[in-house]
Structure formats: C-alpha cells, structure tokens
C-alpha cells in the first residue's frame, strides 16, 4: 500500500498524468486500479504513466498496465509510459510490450 500512497494524478482534458511514485506491485494494485477506472469513464483518453521512482513492476502490475491499455484501446485512447528506468525499458522491450504502447526512457 505504501508504494502507491504517493500517487499523483492530474488531468488536462483527455490527457491524464499518472505518477505512481512507487513500485507497481501486487500490494497497491487494487487501489491504483480503483483510481484509474473512473479516469477513463470520465473521458480520459491518453493516460501517461510517469514511472519516475518506479524500480519494479511485478506480474500483477504488468497485468494492470495491460488492462489499462486494453480499456483505452476499447475507447480509442492510448497508454504511454514515460520516464522508465533502463531495466524497465528493457523489460517492456524484451516482452515486446513496446509494440502495444509507447515506452520511453527516463530523462
């Protein structure tokens, strides 16, 4: 829970910035999921995950990102991941997930 307590969520029109501020792992997923759902319902179409401060994403976390992607894809929106650490970028690339959503490196 602790990890996602620092989450920041800001919105400008259809663009939503999400900054979990901590690792995206099983323990905080339900909270995050609960916060993301209404964002899309409210018309958010471009969700930008800022991974600053995120060092780890577990399978459940990955599942959440994919689910977000899937939800957005259903309404013509898209998911973007920015500020990924080198390790995480490699992860997305090696799993070919970067073919589904845009991932960019920190800095």
């Amino acid at each position: 829970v602790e990890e996602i307590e620092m989450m920041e969520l800001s919105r400008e029109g259809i663009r939503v910035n999400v900054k979990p501020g901590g690792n995206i792992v099983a323990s905080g997923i339900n909270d995050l999921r609960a916060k993301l759902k209404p964002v899309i319902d409210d018309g958010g179409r471009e969700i930008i995950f800022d991974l600053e401060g995120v060092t780890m994403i577990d399978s459940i976390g990955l599942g959440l990102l994919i689910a977000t992607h899937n939800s957005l894809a259903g309404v013509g929106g898209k998911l973007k991941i920015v500020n990924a650490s080198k390790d995480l970028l490699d992860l997305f690339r090696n799993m070919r997930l970067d073919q589904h959503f845009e991932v960019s490196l920190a800095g």
Partner: protein
Amino acid sequence: LIRLPHSKKMLEEKNMGNTDDEILRMFIEESREHLADIENDLLVIEEGGADIDDDLVNKVFRAAHSLKGGAGFFHLVNIKDLAHKIENVLDMIRSRELVPNPEVINILLIAFDKLKELVNNVTESNNIDISEFIVSLTGLSSSYLPKEEKESIKKTLDIRLNGKTVMKVPEFDIAHARKRGDYIYIVQYDLIHDVQRVGKTPLDIIRNMLETGTILECLVDISAVGTLEDEPSNQIPFYVLFATIIEPDIIGSLFELDQERIQVFSGDGKTQKQPEVTGGSTMSVNTMEPIFSQHSVIVPEDNVPAHAGSERGKPQQQAGTSIQHQKAPAQQGASSGPPDASLRVNVHLLDSLMNLAGELVLSRNQLLEAVSHNDRRALRASGQRINLVTSELQEAIMLTRMQPIGNIFNKFPRVVRDLTKDLGKEVRLEMDGKEVELDKTIVEGLSDPLTHLVRNAVDHGIETQEVRVKAGKDPTGTIRLKAYHEAGQVNIEIQDEGAGIDPGKIAATAVSRGLISHDQVKAMSDKERIALILLPGLSTAEKVTDLSGRGVGMDVVKTNLDKLGGQVDIESDMGRGTRFKIKLPLTLAIIPSLLVSVNGERFAVPQVNVDELIRVAASQVDERIEKVGDAQVLILRGKLIPIVRLADCMGIQRTFEDPISGEKRPDRRVQAAGRRSRKAPLFEDPSRLPEEEKKDGRPDGNERRSGPDRRYHANSDLSIVVVTAGAFQYGLVVEALHDNIEIVVKPLGRHLKHLKQYAGATIMGDGRVALILDVAGLAQVIGLSSLAGSSRAVELGKKAQQEKSQDIHSFLLFRNGPDEQCAVPLDLVERVEQVKASAIEQVGGRRVMRYRGESMPLLALKDVAMVQDLPDQDDLIVIVFNLSGKAIGLLATPPVDTIETRTAMDESTLKQKGIMGSCIIDNRTTLIVDIFDLIESLHPGWFKGRDRRDLKKNNSHAILLAEDSDFFRSQVKRFLEEGGNNVIAAEDGAAAWNLLQEKGDEVKLVVTDVEMPNLDGYGLARNIKGNERFSHLPVIALTSLAGDEDLAKGKAAGFDEYLIKLDKEKLQETVSVFFQHSHERK
C-alpha cells in the same frame, strides 16, 4: 563437442546445489582452452581474406558462443556481452557479409584479448570496462549490415501453438540460431502462476533467459488480461521463442517450468513435445561420469609409454603423440587462483600410471616377503624389479607434466604480426618443432624470455624494408623458431636473418656504462662481446621504441633462463642475422648431478653447470694458479677463471689427508700470506704445512715460495670443478669428486629457503641428505663475479658512477654550539671522552685536562674559527686525537655519532681557519673540522719536531700523491707525512704525471686515487709502468672501489698494491714496507 556435456554438467550441478566454485573453475578452464588457439585461427582467417574457410570461422564462432553461454549462466555479464558481440561479427564473416580484412581481424583480436583478460579475472570481470570494445564491435557489425538481412527478415515462419499461430518469426533468425548449434524452444509462461506465485518478477525471468540464450520472439497474450472493467485476470500468458545451447533434457530446470510447457521447435512451423528423457536428468548425471572419454582422441595403444624397458631417446617419439593427448580435468583440487594450477592428462597415460603403481605394489610385496625370509636371491630380484618399475614410473609421471612448446610458440604469430604492423616491417615467421615437449614448469617459465627474444628479433634484428632492399635482401625478413631434442636436452633456436649484432657496438656500450673496462674488451672474442648484451642495463637499440622498452631486458631473459637451468648461446653474423640458441633440460624435477665432497660433507652440482673437472697437480699449483688482488684465479687455456674453495664458502673446516699417516687432519690455513703476495697462498701444498707451522706459526707465503718445492703427493693435488653460471665461469675447489647420479630435487624447507647458494636438497642412496648447489647463487653469495655476473656488474657499474663524483667519508659527528653540527674525519679520532666542565683546568693561559696521567692540551673550535661559543654546561665531551705521537683534545658538546656518507663536500663556502669545508649530513649543514689546521694555529710547531726527525730518517723518500678530492688529498698527505715522508701532492693524474717528469728523481713511491679527472689512476699507472725512467716506481692505488673487476683491472694497469680508502694504519704500513723493499733492493 566439448561444450555441451560440460554446460549440461554445469547446469545440473548448479541445480543440485554443488559448489559453484567447482563449476566456475571448469568454465574458466574450458574457456581458456577455447581461447587458446583463437589467435592463430584468426590470423589464418585474415590471411585467407575473402576466401573464407567455413570450418575455421565456425570453430572460432563456437568458441565465442560457448563462452557466451557459460558466462550467462554465471551472470558474468561482461564476458557474455563481449562474447556476444564477437559472435555477431564472426557470424557476418561466416555469412560473407563481412570480409575479414586486417582491420576486422584486429578488432577481433583485441576483443578476444579482452575476453581472455576477463576470463582470467572472472571475479572482477563485471567491473571491468568493456564499452570501448563493444562499441568497436558493434560499429563493425552495423556498418556492414547489408540489405540481405532485411530481406530475410521479411520471410517469416509462423509459430503455432495449440493449433493457432502465436508468433511470426523471421526465418533468418531461426536459421541463425540453428547455425550456432542452438536448440530452439517455445516456452509458455503464465506470468501469474509461474512467476508471481513463485515470488519472481517478469524482469527476473527475462534476465534469466537473456543470460543463457536469445529471445527470438515473444508474446504477451494481452487479450487474456482483459480490461480495467474485468476482474483482475488470474493469468497472463507469455510465449517465448527461445534459442539456447542448453539441451532439452535439462532445459526444464532452467525455466523451472513443467516439461510440457516447453516445446522443442522443430523448424517446420510445428512443434513437438519435448522428448521424454529416460530417467530424467539425474540419470544423465550418472551416465556422464566418463566425461574424458567423450572427447578424448584415441591414441594408438603402442604410442603410450609401453611396458618394455625404458630406453632413452624416447621423448621424441612420445612428443609426437602427446600433442594429441586430449585432455581431461586433473583430479587435484587445485584452486582456480593462479593460471594453470591444474593439468590435463591423457587417459591412457593415467592408465599406464595405474598399471605401474600396481606393479610397484607387487614388487613391494615381493620385497617384504624376501625380507621376512631373509632370502638374498629374492631380495636381489625384487630390488631389480623395483628399480625397473621405478624408472618407468618416473618416466610416465614426468610425461604427465610434459607440455608441447607449441603452447608458447602459438602466440608468436600474433606477436610478430602486431609488431611488424607497428614497425612497418615485413616479417615471415617459421616455426618448427612445436610438438617438442618440456616440463610444464619450464614451458611456463619460457614464455617471457622467448617472447622477448622474438620481439627483439623483429624489433632490432630484422631491418626495415628499405634497408633490406638496399642490402640486396628479400624485403620480407624471416624469423625461424625451432625446437628440437639433442643429447637429452631441448634446444630452442630463435634465428633472424636481420642485421646481426655489432660486437664493437655492444662492447662500446658496455664500457660507456662502466660495466667493463677497455682492457677487458680487448681480451674478448667477438662472441664474448656479443654475450655482453646479456648484462643488465645494456640496450643496444639506438632509439628505444615503445615496443622494446617494455620492462624485460636481455638480462631478464638470462635470469629467467638461468632459473630454468637453461643456457643461452648467441651467434651473430653482421649483415646476415643472429641466432639465439637456448639449451634446456627436459625437466627440473630430476637432474643429473655431480657429487662432490668437502670434509665428508657431500654436495650435488647440477651437471648442466659443470663444464669440466680439473686436477691441478701439486707441482703445478704455482704455474696454474695465480693471485689477482685478493682473488685466486686458475689459468686455463689462457683464460683466467676465478676459483674458490667450496669449504670456505660453506664455512666447513677443510681437511687434508696426511700423506704420511694417511689420517685426516684439519687444514687450518687461511690466507697465510701477506696481501702483497702475488702467489696463491691458499693453494699451497698442504702436506708441507705441519712442519712449517711448527717452525714459525705464520709462515710468509713469499719466502716459502722462493725455496724449491719439496714433496708432492697425489693427495695434495687440487680438484677443481669448473662450473658455469650463465656466461660466467668459475672454479670450485673441492676435496673429492664422486659419482655422477640422477637426483630428485627436494625443495628446501622454509627456514633454509633464503639461502641462495642452494637450489634444493636430495636424498642419497644411503639415506643421507646432500644439498644441491646453486652455482649462480653461490657465486653471488661469495661475491664472485665477472663480466656476466649480471647483478653484481650493475651494482659495480652504479657504484663506479657514483664514486666518480663522490667518495665515502667516515665522520665523527658532534656539536659545537647547540645547533652547530660539526664533523671530523673518523680515522683521526682516537677516542671520545666525557668530561665535566669542572675537570678542565686553565693553566698558563691554556686549557688542559688530565688524561692518562698527563696533561692533555684542549682546544675549542672557537679558539680559531668564527663559530659559536661552547654552551655553558657541565657535560662536555673531549674528542681525543693522537697526532705526531701526542694526545690533544677538542672540546665539544654531545650528541656524538659516527656516519658514513657520500655527500659531496663544499670546500669553499664555509671554509675558514680550522674549518676545511662543509657538507650536508642528515639534512644539516655540517662543518668539517680541519684538526691539523686547528692545532697548527694554536700550537705552532706541534708537528715540526717529529717531521724533522722523520725527515732525517727517510730523507730520500718523496711520495707522489695524486688525489682529486681536496679532502682526501689533505688527509692522505697528513697520514703520509705523519709517517715521516715527504709528500708531493697533485690534484689529478695528469698533474701528477707532470710533477713526476719534473721531480722524478725525488719520487720513490706513487700513491694514487683511481677515479680522477683528466687522467685516472689506471692511466697514471700505465704511464709510469710504461716509462723506462719510472717503471721501477711502486704504485699504490687508493680507492673505495674494490671489486674483483677493479682488482683485475688495476693489476693490468700496473698497480702494485690496492688499498681501500681510507685506512691510515694500512696505508702507513704499506708505504713503509715498500720503502724497505726498495732499500733492500739497493
């Protein structure tokens, strides 16, 4: 072939929890083996250019590939990455996308070098920076990436799973992987069950895979995840098409997945269930046990050291076969620390060893049986049998240590290539006899010296192309490396057909460096002059290239070879080339040696060091043995060979056999003759000794010599072993010579290790221990040296250099004022007394104190010189001098100290009355007190009375003194004058020579320093001895140089006596002896 079972074994052992260290060690060993030949293979590839030898490229490729696989397994990221990049480039070469031109090969060579470094440094490898290499390799592959690849990427293969296509993969990738010899698997993960539930993250599994292989393609089944609306999915399928060298039967343990989730991709778009491996992996461990046999080349039975007798000359035959010895890890638990701590041995050799061990056991049983029955015949039989088995066993075991010299030779093509590239020369390297085998230790020790010699041949030997063309030679130079057996030894030749070595140049350099003298050079043959390059500190390259000046010099080559018991012979033909011939023993563990003894104590001298044995009959001692300075030399075919008594070196009581009674008696003679003796007092017929000793205790050598020789007896002959330590020969005088035997070298214990004179010890047949002499070490210990006595020559050279500018001064340090450090030459000081200020009396305006029942006048520096007052304190010291027979004291303050210093004296700045000058001692300016001046100022006439008296006595004696240092000149002058002589002083040899011309008739003796400007002592002596008018004058050299070389050189120049600076008594005594002689002569 090799890598698969090993990788498998590694994996299994890892999973079975075996020590990682052991597997890591195997990996390192295996990697080294893979890397061993790469260099030469790459060079051959380079030579072939566009004409690519697939097999060869594949071989190199596989090496890189298996390194990559293993490294990944151990998380050696850098090794893995580097190997991977290398692999890419090689792959392009193989697919003819890249022509292996010199640049490409260069990058590969350097990269492999780095890889080697990483492998040799496994624990550190992850911290070593390899980015530079990665960049250049990546640059290579990307710049050459052709369109072809893009085309082949277009062709894709469908990967179908459970009837539906899950992935499309470029055919190219699959083909690639197969070419590498990889297996391709389709792995189905569920990121929730297989990853999350077992406490892992996706990153963990990705990393795991990347470390052991390549992810060709993968897919996360995102449709299975659902949306945010759906319930969080409880499965995230992840399919991976994975290429790796890991075999199907153990792949499961890598992924920690059920076998059924891993399928082998057959390549036709379908997959097959992974074949059930019978018994699973545990079973295969058991079947793996004879790993050796899997990749051991079969050596024909008859080539293995056979049962038959142990004929000599066998090594060649075996050498031929044993390169094929395919190797298996040795059983010793040697640590992975130092390189090559373990050894691979042919299985057949092990078998035959086992066989022999069995025989030995049988023989032992026989022996025990024979002993218990006291059966002499059976004893003899088993003795013979054990003898036979032992020598076979010895030979077989030695074979296990034998390594082909090719191990070293193989790196030379690269060395030569790199060097020639840098130097812009063309050199062809021919190698012969790679299969010749030597003991492992020797092979290892040879690497550095041989490399140096090869580098030298390229760098200094072979000329540049222009020069060669001008000289009418083939522009491409040839260097030949050759190894062959000869007379139970291995010879290695390094021959270049370059410019040759100029003996004159070498000699001139040696002289200019002060290593030898002109006279010595004159007496040398060209070959001896060339051998001078083995002296330390002698480089003939006019300009030192960065290639040559890399640390090891020729002297190191020599030292290294000495250590291996090797000998170097250099032949050089100006304009035609040079040949270095190195002779080496096959092994160091067992060496043929000569046994000698001194007073019943036996020593072994390695046969390689023995040049000849000489018996000097007692009647010939006079003619054959001469004394040069303090050294004895044997005259052998016109050469002077220094000789020493082994007993003296070892501190053993010498004995001789009394020729009459036949009993052993101690020989008590130690240098009985005076220093002047030109004869050899040490080597007199000892049989004369007892009576002589009775007669006058300490007989004078000269006298006795003059009489006719009396009795000779065979027992008083001298047995001399002429030994050679590198290029330097000397004679060891021993009491008895014994057998030549093969001895087993045992290292000395820790407490004796530091004794350089011994190479080890051995146990003799009778169970006693004999020490093995280290001939070179012994020479060093007893201070024997010659031209080639490397370290000593350097030492002397350096010393001589220093001595030129500075002499040694011995001083007594004291204080005048509290911070006024003063010094007075120590030779003058008689003693130092502590005195209370109250004990000093003032009588008649003079200070005196009572000293040995007399009133001794006391001086203070302040009386004459502008210095501080003595502090007003009770504790003072008095430095007592005894000059002209009377004691006189100098008042001073503590602390006092004595010091030997080489600091140059400043004879001007602080010079004043009573002060000779100053110098820096212990970082303090120190005033040097001129005690004579001081006394003369205060007590004029102190020296006069005596002078007058002495002058009368030695009226006709004038001594010509040549000395450049003012300090020493005034000191020596005083000493001589004190002895009642007239002294004519000159400040160098040239001035002395002029003075001699002027006042030649007065001069009766010449005392000269050796190192002087304008004309040195040698020159002066030569002038004097070469001039009819003066040749009768005795010349005494006075110097702080007193090595054997100096003595020899001085003798050649004509010094009658050589005295060490600065021994007052000795000087005075010697001078008076010479005067007496000249009187007697008259």
